[in-house]
């Protein structure tokens, strides 16, 4: 391929992650993968498929079921200059390692006077909708987003999965890399070659004039789909993908709402004290004089997620919910096309 006309391919989010891990393993011998069942088993969601075979057990290290132990071990190896990429099978299990992540990885650089770097990536999928019941269906990304010292990324497309994972691995700080079970099979166009995302930046992925929808990760798929539907009706929706939950790009969010004067947040997590709370508070502070209607949040119901499909579906936010709230927000301001 020549630099001036980059090629691209349509691949899944899973494949984008897999190829990026492979490329980074090839690029830097200090990069290694560590986690449960990422080798012989090929990863519980097959993100690391084929990598053990090609890079061997030193670079692709299967661990016992010891989240606190191997996450902490990854931290220690990073203190000595390695660049571990940890896979925790799902966000839910990261709770067992959270003392190492929050009390150690996130604190060390500052608490030790800037002497040590912890170049660490922790990847895990969050999200419900797979009938995995209450303990296996959580979206607790807001916990990590609250912690200084961490950087928290939430790519919503295969292209972002690639460029943001590269950025995460090359960054010298601990990065929480949030994936989503429902995104792994989603396909999208991924440019060839080196794209490295800038951490800390949101993106306006669809411009519009009438209302801003703010979302991230899996929610973006629904947000864009709903925005398209409204476009057909002649309502122009702007869609902001947060991409980086920490640092949070308040300027991009507020600039959009200052333009559209209406905002709806679409999030997979639970409403109270969730990601959307900060987004709403931020808009309230940064676009106060421009807002024509209250900022509404479309978020999961506040229950331990049930196994039963109809109950689970009722508790989770869907396209119809977002459409309804967008409409209510437009109506609240007597919006006319």
């Amino acid at each position, binding site marked *: 391929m020549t630099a001036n006309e980059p090629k691209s391919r349509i691949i899944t989010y899973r494949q984008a992650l897999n190829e990026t891990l492979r490329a980074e393993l090839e690029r830097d011998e200090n990069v290694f993968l560590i986690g*449960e*069942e990422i080798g*012989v*088993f*090929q990863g*519980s969601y097959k993100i690391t498929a084929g990598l053990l075979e090609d890079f061997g057990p030193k670079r692709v290290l*299967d661990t*016992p*079921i*010891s*989240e*606190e*132990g191997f996450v902490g071990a990854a931290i220690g190896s990073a203190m000595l200059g390695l660049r571990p990429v940890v896979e925790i099978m799902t966000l*839910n*299990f990261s709770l*067992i390692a959270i003392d190492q992540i929050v009390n150690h990885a996130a604190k060390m650089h500052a608490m030790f006077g800037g002497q040590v770097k912890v170049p660490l990536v922790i990847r895990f999928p969050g999200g419900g909708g*797979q*009938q*995995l*019941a*209450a*303990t*296996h269906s959580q979206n607790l990304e807001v916990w990590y987003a609250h912690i200084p010292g961490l950087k928290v990324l939430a790519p919503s497309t295969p292209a972002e999965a690639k460029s943001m994972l590269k950025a995460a691995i090359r960054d010298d700080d601990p990065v929480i890399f949030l994936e989503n079970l429902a995104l792994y099979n989603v396909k999208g166009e991924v440019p060839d070659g080196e794209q490295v995302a800038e951490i800390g930046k949101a993106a306006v992925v669809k411009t519009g004039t009438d209302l801003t929808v703010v979302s991230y990760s899996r929610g973006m798929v629904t947000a864009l789909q709903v925005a398209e539907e409204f476009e057909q009706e002649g309502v122009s929706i702007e869609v902001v993908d947060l991409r980086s939950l920490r640092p949070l790009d308040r300027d991009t969010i507020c600039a959009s709402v200052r333009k559209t004067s209406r905002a709806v947040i679409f999030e997979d997590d639970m*409403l*109270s004290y969730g990601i959307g709370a900060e987004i709403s508070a931020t808009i309230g502070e940064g676009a106060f004089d421009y807002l024509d209607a209250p900022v*509404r*949040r*479309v*978020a*999961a*119901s*506040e*229950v*331990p997620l*049930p*196994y*039963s*499909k*109809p*109950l689970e579906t*009722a*508790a*989770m*936010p*869907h396209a*119809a*919910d*977002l459409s*309804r*709230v967008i409409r209510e927000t437009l109506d609240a301001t007597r919006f006319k096309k």
Partner: protein
Amino acid sequence: MHLVESETVMATTSRTKKKPASSGQAATELRSYYKRMSLVRAFELRANEMYARAKIGGYCHLNLGEEATVVGLTAALDDRDYLFTTYRDHGYAIMRGMEPSAVMAELFGKSTGVVGGWGGSMHMFDMGKRMLGGYGIVGGQIPPATGAALAINYRSKAGPKAEAVMCLLGDGTTNIGAFHESLNLAGLWNLPIVYVIVNNRLGMGTPVEGASAEPDLYKRGSAYRIEGTRVDGDDPIAVRDAARAALKKAREERRPALLELMSYRLKGHSVVDPARYRSKEDTDEAKGNDPVPAFRAKLIADGVLTEKDADAIDDDADKVVTEAVAFADESPDPSVDELFDKVYASPVANASTRLPAEPAVVLS
């Protein structure tokens, strides 16, 4: 070396306790064990099929290959004892007395399921039967099980009629912190609990030797002065007797115990796992040790069962499971109206009952 050791232990446990097949009472018991093993086998095979037919969602882990363990352990438990299991819990639920139809209904996510469709495969629970769950977080059941034993000490005296707790865990689970902290508490506080490692040789795809620096897992009790015993998990009698002996010590001496049951996983980690990572030898070894046909053959050889009896038992099991599926199929889904009913046991002001599209603030 670890096989040799295990064999010695197995030998003793089996030999010392096994009753002569001749005695009528024993024969009835043996037949009932085969009946139970056959039911668990039939149930799990059907669950596998129902998952393939998308009647069951989420994760689904089966007891296939562990029927002798399931039956032997539950045979050793008294009604007053408490059982905590892992997510691989269907067989235990049924053997603890939950209706196969209610267990199947739970798998189908129906309102008639053992937990009303809220838990699914990994979370079978029945307070009355004293099966206190089904747990999906690896090791998560161990501290609560230990606390149940603490509650028994808190409330009652030791003795032959005392309650005890049995807590199951997998071989891979011995490497998690909760295992260590819990066994230390049990040893320190003299709790009436029997920890049972169902060693099916694999985590998901990781063999014991790839996960545990001390692969003779029963030896790990020594770090807490808890006696460890390894038992042949394919022999329901050996399992039952070892469990009974451990439970007796828990009841009467308030001493915890650690049992390691050597068993095999016949299929993948869960129903969706083709287990490509397993060698043919490994799979063959597992098949060769399948406890259901083995026990069936043994009872027939010992004259406890005839081929005909055995076939009849298998047919009955099949009927029960077929009825369970029919029941689960006909049962209604839970109603969305109950979505917020079970968040709290004590009603509380301002608890959220908002559906996703509803506003956060509803001013009264």
